[in-house]
């Protein structure tokens, strides 16, 4: 570890996100307040007012403008930051796609919340899932410390000359946004040092006043195909890069998260549970108690969702007798949850084992210890070759 030891401080997930963003020295910030993200914008404005954040803060009338501004600033060469959630994320949908198409390395926090349709002011990953094909890198974190660390790493991923893609750092609204935890805020000099390698890379193309350059307006026919192909290839490169940056971060700051996925007690496990976000923390304790009862169960915490960590997942899940996937969102048009559906596409690599889908934690409902315990028990039964239920909406099977 090279970083200075710092005294822990207690702060909310939103406060942590704002702190991390500030430490990365963004030059342009444009963000519109929305529950449960508002505190991020408030805190950044306070930093600006206090003179500790030297960024151009653009006051916008909505998220669509916010994304247009950070995208344009990024194309002009600036380091940028924005944050949103739910309705805000879908209100910037067209500019979200545009930003990805322009390969603008925007770093955005998305505080996961349910989406429009049923006025859902509550936690859920549906917003992130609804934008999974936008061409952005999507990563999900579990606690306040990981919010800080992942935002810092996000710049090393997005702005890397070999990547040049926008990244969305996701954390559970309500659960993490308002949860106050002890965190270590890295020292400014250490963040500067960790981000310094970006300065040694070739400069990415940028708009320069008076120079006859353009970006993005000429994607017709083969221009379009070529741009899309390069975009997909870049996303594929993101996978190993996430692992590499995570490792480097660990060596520098003494904390690392497994990169694309975190494998917890998977090596000798017969069955594996896949979860993401704050639920992964709860899952770990249930894994421990089931292990104490003699059940060989492991946890895969899905961190990178776009690009989908196909290879790492296949490696972790290969040879397991059954798998249970907990989704905090739904996939309209599929019976199974979105993460489960995608994990099922690994069947040719991991074999035709039972993969059980669990929908839980929608709309602020808890993914609690009994729920995860039940998932493990049922997956263990399926592993013995007994019949199982393919999809379970846990709250729908409970009497309240």
């Amino acid at each position, binding site marked *: 570890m090279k970083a200075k030891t710092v005294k822990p401080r207690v702060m909310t997930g939103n406060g942590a996100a704002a702190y991390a963003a500030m430490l990365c020295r963004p030059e342009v910030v444009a963000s519109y307040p929305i529950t449960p993200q508002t505190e991020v914008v408030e805190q950044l404005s306070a930093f600006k007012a206090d003179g500790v954040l030297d960024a151009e803060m653009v006051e916008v009338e909505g998220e669509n403008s916010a994304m247009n501004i950070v995208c344009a600033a990024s194309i002009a060469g600036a380091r940028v930051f924005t944050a949103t959630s739910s309705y805000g994320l879908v209100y910037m949908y067209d500019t979200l796609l545009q930003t990805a198409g322009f390969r603008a390395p925007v770093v955005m926090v998305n505080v996961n919340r349910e989406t429009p349709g049923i006025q859902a002011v509550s936690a859920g990953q549906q917003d992130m899932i609804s934008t999974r094909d936008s061409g952005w890198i999507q990563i999900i974190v579990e606690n306040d410390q990981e919010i800080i660390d992942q935002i810092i790493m996000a710049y090393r991923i997005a702005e890397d000359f070999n990547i040049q893609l926008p990244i969305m750092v996701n954390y559970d609204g309500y659960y993490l946004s308002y949860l106050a935890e002890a965190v270590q805020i890295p020292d400014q000099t250490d963040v500067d040092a960790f981000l310094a390698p970006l300065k040694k890379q070739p400069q990415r*193309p940028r708009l320069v006043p008076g120079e*006859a*350059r*353009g970006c993005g307006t000429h994607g017709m026919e083969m*221009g379009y195909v070529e*741009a899309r192909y390069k975009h997909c290839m870049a996303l594929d490169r993101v996978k190993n890069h996430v692992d590499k940056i995570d490792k480097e971060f660990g060596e520098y700051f003494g904390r690392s998260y497994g990169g694309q996925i975190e494998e917890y007690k998977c090596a000798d496990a017969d069955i594996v549970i896949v979860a993401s976000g704050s639920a992964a923390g709860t899952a770990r304790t249930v894994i421990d108690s089931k292990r104490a009862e003699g059940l060989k169960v492991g946890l895969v915490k899905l961190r990178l969702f776009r690009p989908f960590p196909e290879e790492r997942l296949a490696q972790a899940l290969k040879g397991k007798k059954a798998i249970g996937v907990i989704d905090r969102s739904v996939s309209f048009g599929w019976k199974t949850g979105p993460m489960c559906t995608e994990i099922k596409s690994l069947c040719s690599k991991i074999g035709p084992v039972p993969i059980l889908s669990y929908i839980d934690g929608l709309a602020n409902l808890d993914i609690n210890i009994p729920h995860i315990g039940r998932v493990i028990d049922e997956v263990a039964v399926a592993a013995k070759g007994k019949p199982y239920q393919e999809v379970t909406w846990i709250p729908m099977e409970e009497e309240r």
Partner: protein
Amino acid sequence: MVIKHKNIFETESCWSNADKQMLCLDTGGWRTERPVLDQTKCNYCGLCCLYCPPQCMLDKGDHYEANLAFCKGCGICAHECPRGALTMVPEGEFGNEG
């Protein structure tokens, strides 16, 4: 996969440098009618030039002329001209000169 395509863009993102090669939409190819000016009616007010979406109007000193390489034939200039100096004429009447 064997890639036979030769890259259009030098950069990873879809940037082009007009000093070397300007990659742009072939909006001229979309045109089915073009604006024709009656110069006796035109007072060089410039509204047609301001409103033209692809900004293809060339300033000729006493009137404006659509650059047919980019004029998409939308007719907005003719619609906006307060003096009725522009008429949209079907491309079929011009042969292949444009």
